[in-house]
């Protein structure tokens, strides 16, 4: 038996039970994932084969045809790891933008914690990230890298990306309900961010603009996370840690603070918007 007053009674971001929240988010993410490979003969196998084929093409192109990376060992693997992580960020945030609007029917007809929707989008992207990581590991072993304990650091990097992607996702999905131009703006912003982050190049490229610039650039969460990912996976003096690239731990802590700030901002904004989101669609 529950008694609820009007104010607390309406729709909210989080709802009343952790169990229902988790089940809903998992169910929605699983459905999305299932639909992606729906109707294909190989089904889930595609979720493994697709990135494997795609990255093989990229790998061959950049290492054999264009020969980027000028002799830096394992450049192909470096590129692959970065693209996998970036693809997660692009998918999680890109799909989050209109996630509330496309589920209008649900929002207008059923009471459920609203936060489930953007988080399920992140969750679907996380499933894909996990699948793609299998490919990364295959390529790493094929490149002759011996498994090491530092690989576990990749989990921390992935968590960083997931928190960052979820934060941006919550923010964008709620903003998009009010301003439809969030979609094209985010597309451009994501492109700028891609070229501003050390995905295809190395973080020490920032050095051309000065020592201080490199330190500031490393506050960019993706710069720190990507640098740390290759350090954990490949290591050696060619792949130094994020702190080494930033000439100190300060910028790395700054990057972590930025991630937490973005997540908190997205959370706050979404919780603020959630009660009226069904009316504003």
């Amino acid at each position, binding site marked *: 038996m529950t*008694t*609820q*007053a009007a104010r607390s009674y*309406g*729709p909210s971001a989080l709802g009343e039970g952790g169990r229902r929240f988790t*089940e809903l988010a998992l169910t929605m993410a699983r459905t999305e994932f299932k*639909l992606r490979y729906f109707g294909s003969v190989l089904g889930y196998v595609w979720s493994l084969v697709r990135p494997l084929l795609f990255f093989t093409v990229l790998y061959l192109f950049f290492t054999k045809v264009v020969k980027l990376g000028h002799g830096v060992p394992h450049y192909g693997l470096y590129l692959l790891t970065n693209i996998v992580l970036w693809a997660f960020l692009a998918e999680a945030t890109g799909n989050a933008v209109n996630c509330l609007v496309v589920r209008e029917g649900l929002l207008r007809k*059923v009471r*459920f914690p609203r936060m489930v929707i953007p988080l399920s989008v992140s969750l679907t992207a996380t499933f894909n990230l996990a699948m793609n990581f299998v490919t990364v590991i295959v390529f790493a072993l094929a490149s002759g890298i011996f498994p090491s304990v530092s690989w576990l650091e990749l989990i921390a990097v992935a968590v960083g990306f997931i928190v960052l992607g979820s934060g941006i996702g919550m923010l964008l999905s709620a903003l998009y309900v009010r301003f439809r131009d969030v979609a094209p703006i985010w597309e451009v912003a994501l492109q700028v961010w891609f070229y501003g982050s050390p995905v295809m190049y190395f973080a020490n490229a920032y050095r051309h603009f000065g020592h201080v610039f490199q330190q500031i650039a490393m506050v960019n969460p993706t710069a720190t996370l990507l640098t740390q990912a290759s350090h954990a996976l490949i290591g050696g003096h060619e792949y130094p840690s994020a702190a080494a690239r930033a000439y100190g731990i300060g910028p790395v802590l700054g990057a972590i603070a930025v991630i937490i700030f973005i997540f908190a901002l997205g959370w706050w904004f979404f919780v603020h918007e959630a009660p009226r989101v*069904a009316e504003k669609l």
Partner: protein
Amino acid sequence: MTTTVSVERSDQRLATAPARPAVSISHLSKSFRIPREQAHTLKERVLHPLRFRQYDVLRAVQDVTVDIAPGEFFGIVGRNGSGKSTLLKCLAGIYAVDDGQLAVHGRLSPFIELGVGFNMDLEARDNVIINAIMLGLTRKQARERFDDIIAFAELEEFTELKLKNYSSGMLVRLAFATAIQVDAEILLIDEVLAVGDAAFQQKCFDEFGRLRAAGRTILFVTHDMGAVQRFCDRAMLLERGRVVDIGEASLIAREYNRINFERTTSDGGAGATATPSPTPQLAEVLNARFESADREPVLTANQGDRCYVRMEVRFLAPIDDPVFSISLENESGNVAFATSTNVHQASTGHFEPGVTASARIAFENWLAPGRYRLIATVAREGWGDDAYDVHTTSSIVVLADRPGGGLADLPSEIEINRS
């Protein structure tokens, strides 16, 4: 302003009043801001910062107060745009309430429409599980009840079929079967019986009866006054967001008809009067229904059988030779069949005030299969144009074993001659 009801206070109320309402609504209001010009982009907003400040306020629900007792079957009726669906969405917790209080005692079904979240590209099995979880079951419960759901929906052979290959009737069956599996103490239902074949509709009605017997509280939004009279204990009539009346279901159904048909009956006269003058009512149709040969109410009729309609009329003034008439309207609003005492007998006699008359009309049912609405009228002597009262709350479904082409399926023979 909104005040918060503390749990302690409601417990006290429980102690003093044992019959605590299942749903208590007091002075509930909800309005929407409708911008005169919608700004969907930043550019519009930046270029014309003042233009989009203007908006109209649509007061969808205003100052609604009602208590619904546990176990009550409560109808919410009103014309399109009267605010009944908004009220239901406030109750369901989909819209945030502007003002007033809302207290719900018991687990409320969080859905107001069937089949929400169905994905046409997935099989019935996946959809049932997803839908059940949306409605508040856990994954485990949803799996356990899957077989019951499919059995109720009579779709055992089609569980592996994708929903896009389902007929609309099959979809509704699946959705309804899923929805009733939710263990809610309070159910909110918004016009669910619009689709589905007659046999399944009967099954739904039976299910309503079972839920009611099990002591569930049901709030039912509908246009179908027949359903209101058949199921609801009480009903509430809304008009432009305000409560017109709350009372016994049959009274509310009558009032709904009065509001809805006021215009049509007054327009039917010789000179269409702009404002219907409040003339005292001279006669009223108490009831009109289809029945079987042995006078039991029926919802369906077989083509070719004899069909009976009973209407009861109470006279409130002395009246000579009133005209009793019925007409059956199909779903597209065409009158398929009409008859009246004019056709059969010149004089119906004199009726004193307070007398209740019952007319039984029998006809050979050669109507094409489908649903028909019964319109029963008592009118002044003459051609039946000047109605005292109109009753439109019953309907019947005609079943046939062959498809019909026109409005009626008259018994026919075809002879072919070769020259």
